[in-house]
């Protein structure tokens, strides 16, 4: 596994922050010029774009911050999984990544390019979503199946699901799955125009929540067949996944939460598990009025007795296309370390619902973790990670 987020530049750093309840949300914005820098809180990765290039040895022109974050997490993941150069270039190694910003992080540069400033053409080839994975593919000479998906905030959950299915279908024997997004004027202004950005640190599942904080980062995980793992460490298994559409509204969830309910239910069915088997839910929990209420109702609809649940958005902010991959790493840590991490900033349950998320770091016996991701366009995906016996 590899991860870079507002709470750390490695799995170990992220883990330490989760244990210590140390948030990464600050009124920053130093790495993307915006009138909201220093005014709105963000989950910002505290390393400059040029410094990232130097650290990663990236010298080619046209590599965006989104791609650099992806490469950082990708490098940690393949080193952790001890993948060799031969394995990376083998025809049975696939790369499936997700992003919602891609090269669109370069708002001003794109504007300049499309309005006739022909001097500034470094990024014209990297404006799309695929540019992130195509760079990684070229850098490492990956020849197997390569794919990029964008289903808004559930993008990297779908990348993880797709990776599993590539292995099951025999199209790949190992798949590097994940996602990356960087803070950008584009998304900051989009969510701000929708009036769902909080001017304070987000408070998922709290009665007085004011909206979400955007974050940036990336995470990749290496999926391999159990038979191929040999003496390498197995953190966990992806035991189930469910994908459904809410079919209600372009940017909000239905009051009944059909999409979230079906995604969770389909994930349970695919894992062959019952609701009672789930020990913990890593909730989508963005801190918006709409999501937290609908997600709560959908969880209550599916689970007779709701297991422990928490959102980690109070640590990292909402990392959009990378959120599910980052939270997949956290869900795997729940299992690997047998512990739960707090839902930060919670004070008062939502009236009429009354649910309380986990609020402190604790040791717990965890076998099965469900991780939820719900996106614009009603694109809902839930994953289940399980302890390998």
């Amino acid at each position, binding site marked *: 596994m590899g991860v870079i987020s507002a709470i750390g530049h490695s799995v170990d750093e992220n883990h330490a922050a989760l244990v210590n309840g140390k948030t990464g949300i600050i009124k920053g914005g130093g790495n993307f010029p*915006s*009138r*909201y820098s220093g005014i709105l809180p963000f989950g910002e990765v505290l390393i400059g774009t040029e410094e990232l290039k130097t650290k990663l040895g990236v010298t080619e022109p046209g590599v965006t911050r989104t791609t650099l974050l992806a490469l950082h997490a990708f490098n940690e993941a393949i080193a952790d999984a001890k993948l060799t150069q031969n394995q990376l270039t083998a025809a049975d190694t696939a790369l499936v990544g997700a992003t*919602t910003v891609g090269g*669109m992080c370069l*708002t001003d540069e*794109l*504007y300049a*390019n*499309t309005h006739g400033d*022909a001097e500034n*053409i470094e990024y*014209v*080839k990297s*404006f*799309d*979503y*695929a540019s992130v*994975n195509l760079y990684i593919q070229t850098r490492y000479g*990956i*020849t197997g*199946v*390569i*794919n*990029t*998906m*964008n*289903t*808004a905030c559930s993008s990297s959950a*779908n990348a993880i699901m*797709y990776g599993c*299915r*590539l292995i099951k*279908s*025999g*199209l790949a024997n190992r798949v590097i799955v994940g996602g990356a997004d960087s803070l950008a*004027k*584009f998304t*900051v*202004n*989009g969510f*701000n*125009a*929708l009036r769902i950005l909080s001017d304070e640190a987000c408070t998922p599942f709290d009665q007085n929540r004011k909206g979400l904080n955007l974050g940036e980062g990336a995470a990749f995980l290496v999926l391999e067949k159990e038979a191929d793992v040999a003496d390498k460490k197995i953190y966990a298994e992806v035991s189930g996944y469910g*994908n*459904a*559409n*809410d*079919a*209600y*509204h*372009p*940017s909000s969830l239905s009051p009944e939460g*059909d*999409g979230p309910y079906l995604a969770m239910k389909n994930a349970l069915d695919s894992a062959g598990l019952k609701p009672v088997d789930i020990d913990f839910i890593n909730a989508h929990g963005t801190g918006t009025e709409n999501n937290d209420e609908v997600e709560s109702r959908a969880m209550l609809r599916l689970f007779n007795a709701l297991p422990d649940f928490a959102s980690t958005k109070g640590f990292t902010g909402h990392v959009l296309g990378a959120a599910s991959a980052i939270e997949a790493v956290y869900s795997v840590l729940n299992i690997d370390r047998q512990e739960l991490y707090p839902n930060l900033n919670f004070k008062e349950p939502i009236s009429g619902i009354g649910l309380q998320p986990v609020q402190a770091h604790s040791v717990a016996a965890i076998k099965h973790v469900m991780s939820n991701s719900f*996106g*614009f*366009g*009603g*694109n809902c995906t839930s994953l289940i990670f399980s302890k390998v016996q």
Partner: protein
Amino acid sequence: MMSFYIHKTTCISPQQTFGDNIDIATLHPSVDNKLYAIEPAYPQFKGNALRRMSKSTRIGAGAALPLLAGAPQPDGIIIGTQVSGMEENGKFLNQIIEYNEDMLTPGSFVQGTPNTISSQIALISNNKNYNLTHVHRGLAFENAVIDVAMLLNENPRSNYLLGGVDEISFNNYTLDTLAGWFKKEDCLNSDMYSSTTDGSLSGEGAAMFIVGNDKQNAMAQLKAITTIHSADVEVIKTRIKKFLEENLADGEKADLLLTGENGDKRSLPFYTSFDSLFDNYTSIARFKHMCGEYPTASSFALWLACNVVSGAVNVPQHMIKRKGEATGFKNILIYNTHKVGQHSCMLVSLPV
């Protein structure tokens, strides 16, 4: 393994490919180096909804909905697109700069995400099933095809809506022109194959397919698909040879090649090398003068191939590059490359 049957297909393209009076014999000309989709009236969308939709959502949903009318709900909606919604994204980027990040309206931001097509189709048809959008540039549609093929292995009795959509927007046209992918000098689509310069003509379209494992009443079978990432002509040649050996039975030949030749001198060596794999038996036809170059243009080729093997359309003279000895077109091989590095091959056959 990577195989399924195509039952119905629709296509909104720069040619007369949609509705009751399909006519591909008449070639509609390009305008200012662009081939714009001929849009129908869209009776399904009400006034406000239509005005809010991006063009890619309009043509995508507009092509999909007739396939869904009066039919059982598909078990999933799987769309390939590079950057659908780019026009809306562009509007939003312009707002950000011109209004200095203040007092913005979110409409274009929401409509600008590429999963808007699959989610709008789901919303309009109340489909809560599997829903996914692949955006891997020149292989976005191929990855959607692979997704559907895997789904049909996982759920053999299901049916899916599969589509490929992209639009010409001011933003992506300008960016791709700056990057050298579209011709800078005036060129008509009817002359594009004799061009000796870099770049192609810009195009757009939406092709939709209802697919499943049921052979009965199928119009065509997608027998196999492969994707290749390389800028090396020899690597591509070797991989395609292997693909043919694995997927054409002994003594079986490709009757027709449908290639994505696009008038860009940098991609021509790949197409020439591909053509050279086949003897005089095989006819060679081209399609990019009809739809233009766009990242999911292979979906237009698949629409063509389905209609040719099923006998719904004949291959018009303007498509023919080389007339072969084959008398009927039962096995069609589609080869396409986008921006030189991404390649795909699909084998389409008459169901037997």
